[in-house]
């Protein structure tokens, strides 16, 4: 079945952010397809490559990057939600004259249209947090 995931939950403050990751892994291991993962609201903060958790805690941005590389996942971060929370790719960092970009590898910034399209195309849309 074709799934899309929508992640609203903030990493570390809410369990749902890591639940989304484990759910994605589980779907793939059972042979399902993940059409897209869409990060919205505080959920976008998981795409910040500057996140540096203690060694005995999961590094969610890194885990998502690895999963995306392994399965060619489409990890889309809502651009409006991300930019106002300081999650920037090269283009946005330049546009807003910020020192550096910090979007983790494997993620891309795009608009809400990507969420609408994911809803239209997927058999199931599962929301985490919110």
């Amino acid at each position, binding site marked *: 079945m074709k799934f899309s995931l*929508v992640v*609203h939950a903030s990493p570390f403050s809410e369990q749902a952010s890591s639940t989304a990751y484990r759910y994605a892994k589980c779907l793939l291991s059972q042979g399902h397809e993940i059409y897209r993962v869409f990060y*919205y*609201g505080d959920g976008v903060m998981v795409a910040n490559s500057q996140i540096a958790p203690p060694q005995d805690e999961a590094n969610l941005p890194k885990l998502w990057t690895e999963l995306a590389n392994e399965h060619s996942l489409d990890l889309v971060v809502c651009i*409006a*939600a991300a930019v106002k929370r300081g999650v920037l790719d090269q283009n946005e960092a330049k546009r807003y004259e910020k020192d550096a970009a910090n979007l983790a590898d494997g993620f891309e910034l795009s*608009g*809400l*249209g990507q*969420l*609408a*399209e994911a*809803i*239209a*195309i997927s058999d199931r*849309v599962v*929301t985490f947090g*919110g």
Partner: protein
Amino acid sequence: MSDKKSILIINQSAPYGSSKARESLDVALTCSIFDMPVSLLFIGDGLFQLIKGQSPELLDMKKHEAMLTALPMYDIEQIFVTEDDLKTNGLTEQDLALSVNVVSRDMISSLIQNHDSVMTF
């Protein structure tokens, strides 16, 4: 886009205490631009999003009410509230900034059933 899936957006958050109301509205407008039929259900504290005469400028926030009144321009006219929620909060339809369909709480399950996708904010 393969087909036009209908979406029900359930709003259960008050307008200014969190970003939920804004995020929900943005999703509703985007889906509508993509020609997906959008219905909105306001339940619990979500009902407060619809109240007339909001003054969010005191909080340096944008007027949610004004954005909601733009919904008909986006062809979003299926807006539902429940009779129970109106009564619980001591409100009537006249207290709301836009015209809504008042349904009984039992109708929520059929609303969910009648849409292809449901998102909650």
